């Protein structure tokens, strides 16, 4: 079943690989704005990274 949209206090939805990447990058996923279905994808992480001007060089953008 498709993941339902996250409500405000809901847990972060993300695939393990996204979680891993965020962790490696030291990013707190709850700060990342999810995709409209509530799930955080690589693209959302990329957006967050470029927004924060962080580690975009170290972590090349990926597509899902």
């Amino acid at each position, binding site marked *: 079943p498709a993941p339902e949209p996250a409500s405000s206090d809901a847990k972060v939805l993300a695939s*393990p690989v996204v979680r891993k990447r965020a962790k490696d990058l030291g990013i707190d996923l709850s700060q990342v704005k999810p995709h409209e279905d509530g*799930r955080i994808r690589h693209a959302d992480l990329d957006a967050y990274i470029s927004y924060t001007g962080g580690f975009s060089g170290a972590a090349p953008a990926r597509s899902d």
Partner: protein
Amino acid sequence: VREMNMIEAINSALDIMLERDDNVTLLGEDIGYFGGVFRCTAGLQEKYGKTRVFDTPISECGIIGVAVGMGAYGLRPVPEIQFADYIYPGLDQLISEAARLRYRSAAEFIAPMTVRSPFGGGIFGGQTHSQSPESIFTHVSGLKTVIPSTPYDAKGLLISCIEDNDPVIFFEPKRIYNGPFDGYYDKPAKSWKGFDAAQVPTDYYKIPLGKARTVREGEALTILAYGTMVHVVESVAREKGVDAEVLDLRTLVPLDIEAIEASVKKTGKCLIVHEATRTSGFGSELSAMVQERCFYHLEAPIERVTGFDTPYPHSLEWAYFPGPVRIGEAIDKLLEA
């Protein structure tokens, strides 16, 4: 309400069903005059007579086979297999016949039997008195698999099984017949005395099949268990002071997927515990389902804590048993992830 251990609770369920329904019939090795090697049927032959409660030849194939025929007549047989380890000679009758009968006859004939059998280790029973073969049965379409963890549940679930019109295998965790077990084999054994779950109504009541029980609520992780392991898991969680949500599955098929899904989505972490051999144990199905349904909520790999992929060794049974150390390690791993 009366304080009962699990044996008494099972006896009470059987007694009530024999009383309420003339078609309920008990059969098995040593269950009649003697009342069963674990005394679950004590006194019932005396009360209901030899056609309702009877000893059988030592043939598990015969026991389950005649139960199919009795069901075809209209009885509601409750065969006992003395130990789960000895169910294999009866598997063809259970799998190819009892479980398939409704389907292949388009419901003209049914096999409304409840096969009771003590299972699990921790009693120095050696490899042929300790097995936990439940996952084999969960793979058989047409069979239900039920496992209680307390006297209260044992009675209510067993009554539901007997009234159910499908064949059910009801595995009784023999390690906790006489008292709950926290996994410390080196501490004195506890009896059911004083436990809430040993307060059992003397009358008829049912616990629906397919509904899990929330043993304790928590936020940090979800632990799925059944039978003896419910108690071990609970005590480890208590001891470690972990905010674990513990679900006692009670029925493996059909599974209470809703309860599982809700809990794992809440906690984001899941530990599955069973005593059976790891490979293709029921934990693998649970893990697969949780992963399929809660994937994006998972914050750490689902962990399985199980018995090892060896026969249950007599003298090293506590090395085999998935006890507090093994469970504790897995909890730590999940919390640290």
